[in-house]
């Protein structure tokens, strides 16, 4: 059907050629301007495909059209655009690229693993990502993966922020791969479930302290803002008074004022508050004080001193403002309960990771609507010396029954595990007694990461990150024929004709 459409709508070959030459010329001229190049790049139409949009549709003998780096059309009766490059999927299945919601791909060593302790919120996972790890990328393309949440590692306490990356090329920088879709996607915390009890207590205490520090820091910054406002107000008044009064009168008044300001100066300026934040406890500061900007000898109000910036706490503050979700890695039931307490105390949005014993606290998690991300289920075992001795094979099922939404990632323990994210999803489906594994690693994974409107589905306007499979993607004998990322073919099965 589709080829006939093409024929019917295509103009005469001569005209087509002329347009092509013209367009190519335009492309050459406009190439240095990326936006233009994209607009004028040749569309690609994948036809003769069974398309699983992961948006509820299964299209037989369908066509998918790419324009630039996004999908422009998906359906069964589509007329491909003029001059589109046609790619025959040979009856294969097209799905969105798979997404690993907890990955270490591209990190030869985990970013945060070297030093322990807490307080590295400023560490960014994306900084550890190797954009030229071509062989690793080929491996994951070979299994259909095109996007990851890159974990900042798992040092105890706050380990930094994770990022969402699409394994798309940056056209000018070949073989560079990996476009950050969202930087600072989540703040990662590891409650160190695998450690000894004392280490776990210390970790929890260190994390709690950082959140308290962040609250204190917020107060300091707010005070500073108030001080600035007050300063500006007084400065205005002062300027006004300067204009009204003569110079002689001014000086008299100034002397009086200076004395007054000296007496009220102590203990309420921002630097001293910072001292409280650094050394003393929160109780030592005096909260309800009326602030008044200092004044110089001539009575001119002095600009309040800006408190020192704390980049770590700035990031923690984002979680407290609910602008940044927190991912807490906890396996043991007691650590999960601690995480629940922490989230209640500081009221941030959070996701539980690891979660080996989560079935024990499923009710609590359900009540708080906390999503759970399991690590690789293929790694967990019931061996008798297992530290998570109460981990259960059917945790996923028990969470489903309790109404806790859960997802599965590769666990961010080994970069190579990302390859088999579809198998992880299949194991999870088998253990939970249902669910579509393919949906779990595409649309649902994208939703879990909060990027469900950009990746994970085949819809117009979404990024053209997709995979052409030789058959059912969940059948182990199925091969990946082609992978597209950002509208460009990034992988092709060597034997594909």
């Amino acid at each position, binding site marked *: 059907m589709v080829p006939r459409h093409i024929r019917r709508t295509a103009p005469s070959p001569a005209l087509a050629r002329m347009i092509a030459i013209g367009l190519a010329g335009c492309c050459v001229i406009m190439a240095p301007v990326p936006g233009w190049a994209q607009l004028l790049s040749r569309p690609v139409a994948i036809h003769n495909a069974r398309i699983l949009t992961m948006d509820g549709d299964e299209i037989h003998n369908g066509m998918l059209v790419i324009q630039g780096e996004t999908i422009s059309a998906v359906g069964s009766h589509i007329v491909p655009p003029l001059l589109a490059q046609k790619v025959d999927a040979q009856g294969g299945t097209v799905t969105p690229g798979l997404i690993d919601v907890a990955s270490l791909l591209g990190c030869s060593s985990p970013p945060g693993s070297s030093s322990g302790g807490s307080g590295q919120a400023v560490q960014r996972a994306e900084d550890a990502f190797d954009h030229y790890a071509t062989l690793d990328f080929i491996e994951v393309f070979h299994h259909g993966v095109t996007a990851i949440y890159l974990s900042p590692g798992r040092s105890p306490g706050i380990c930094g922020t994770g990022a969402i990356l699409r394994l798309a090329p940056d056209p000018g920088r070949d073989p560079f791969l990996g476009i950050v879709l969202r930087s600072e996607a989540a703040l990662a915390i590891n409650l160190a479930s695998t450690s000894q009890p004392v280490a776990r207590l210390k970790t929890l205490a260190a994390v709690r302290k950082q959140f308290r520090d962040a609250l204190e820091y917020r107060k300091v910054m707010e005070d500073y803002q108030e001080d600035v406002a007050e300063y500006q107000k007084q400065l205005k008044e002062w300027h006004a008074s300067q204009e009204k009064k003569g110079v002689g009168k001014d000086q008299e008044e100034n002397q009086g004022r200076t004395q007054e300001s000296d007496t009220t100066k102590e203990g309420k300026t921002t630097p001293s508050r910072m001292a409280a934040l650094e050394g003393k406890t929160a109780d030592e500061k005096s909260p309800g004080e009326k602030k008044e900007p200092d004044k110089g000898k001539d009575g001119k109000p002095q600009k309040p001193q800006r408190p020192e910036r704390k980049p770590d706490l700035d990031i923690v503050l984002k979680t407290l403002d609910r602008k940044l979700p927190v991912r807490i890695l906890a396996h043991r039931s007691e650590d999960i309960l601690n995480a629940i307490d922490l989230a209640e105390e500081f009221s941030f949005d959070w996701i539980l990771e690891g979660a080996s014993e989560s079935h024990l606290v499923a009710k609590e998690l359900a009540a708080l609507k906390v999503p759970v991300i399991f690590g*690789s289920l293929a790694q967990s075992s*019931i061996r008798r010396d297992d530290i998570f001795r109460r981990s259960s*094979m059917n945790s996923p099922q028990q969470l489903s029954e309790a109404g806790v939404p859960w997802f599965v990632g590769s666990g961010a323990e*080994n970069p190579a*595990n990302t390859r088999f994210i579809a198998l992880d999803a*299949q194991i999870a489906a*088998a253990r939970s007694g249902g669910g579509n594994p393919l949906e779990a690693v595409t649309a649902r994974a994208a939703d879990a990461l909060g990027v469900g409107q950009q990746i994970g589905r085949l819809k117009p306007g979404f990024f053209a990150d997709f995979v052409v499979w030789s058959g059912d993607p969940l059948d*182990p004998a199925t091969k990946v024929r082609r992978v597209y990322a950002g509208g460009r073919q990034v992988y092709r099965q060597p034997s594909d004709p």
Partner: protein
Amino acid sequence: MGMMIPYNRYGLDQGIRPDAPVCRTSLFQWIHWLAMAGLLVIQFPSHGMEATESENPGSIQVLQADWIVQPDGTLKPDTAIVIQGGKIREILAAADVKEYEVCPMGKGTVLCPGLIDLFGTVGAVGQTAEMAHVVDPDARAVDAIDPYHKDLVAALRSGITSAVVSPAPNNLVSGTSVCFRTLAKEGKLDILRKNGPLVFSIGESVWQRERIPTSRIGLLDQMRTLVHRAQAGEAHPGINAVFAGQADAVIFCEQGQDVAAARDVLGDRMGQFAVVHSQDAMDLATKASQWSRPVVVGPYTFSSNRRELLGAGLLSKNGVDVAFRGGFPNAPPEGLRITAALAVRFGMDPAAARRAMTVIPARVAGVEDRIGAIEPGQEADLVLFSGDPLRLDSTIRAVFIQGVRTYPAANQESSAGGEQ
């Protein structure tokens, strides 16, 4: 009722009813049962009736799934298995079973021979390594198996109906392996073969600081001496038998160089040993085609490297019979199927991969005349999957041991899940 409590005490607390052929009620809910003791009294006679019916050697049971796994590993549609006296009597096309009362297994289901786990430590207590003697043919792995071990239950539920456990390959000759069913009735291990293949090993695990050999050189020296003596009939009778071609053996060679060393030392006797190997199977593949015995590879995990993962497929393409190790209990219970799924992802033929979990391991263990294939005369140890066993989203719907449905109990079926 008296029958039931012991199982619970042994840890078989979640629906395994080894003694009940068709389970109406789950042991899982035995507390609930006790509370309704009155009901139990009513139900008990019906249980007794079913038990006698199935234990009666004359009674016939017909299982019909959408597909069965054939001895060659391929899937055959619409086939019924006629079971009598715990054995497979015949295999019929679905159209020909009209004379029997058929027990349909549901849409999309696949009946597969019970999976066989090779050289894991299922049910083993403590160490299976005995390192005092470098040549220790009298050690028996069967002595390490605890029939009440909880791993047995977990293995059974994940479709592993039989396991082969060997003494740890830390000696030149470590002793005999054992093949047993993972269903232990009343604390009695159902042993399929007590003195299974004798275990030889070459590799780093054999060198010890405390005793000779301490290096590869010493190891090969000792091995040559042993081979020489065995061929002259002067070694331990068990070892002599292996070299006289009267007994079977396996040789653990973890690395490629170990295989090469084994080949040098054993010469034309190498063909008698099943090789347990994984790391360099890819290199081995090109040279292994003359071997008559299977090669055992795995366990494969998600972090295995590409070279390892390609090994099974290449060996199989070169005409070698491949069997998998699943690694349970150190790997999850699905380990065997994960290994198979990964091998297929890396080019192994699906039929060969199904054989590598069933027929071939039975051959390695020397029990292929009893289990491992759906063939007339074989014992009816079967697993009912919701789909292809190679697909990891397929669930286990039922496990049959000698034709008796063992897992799950009938009223647990709904929670077994799977594709609807």
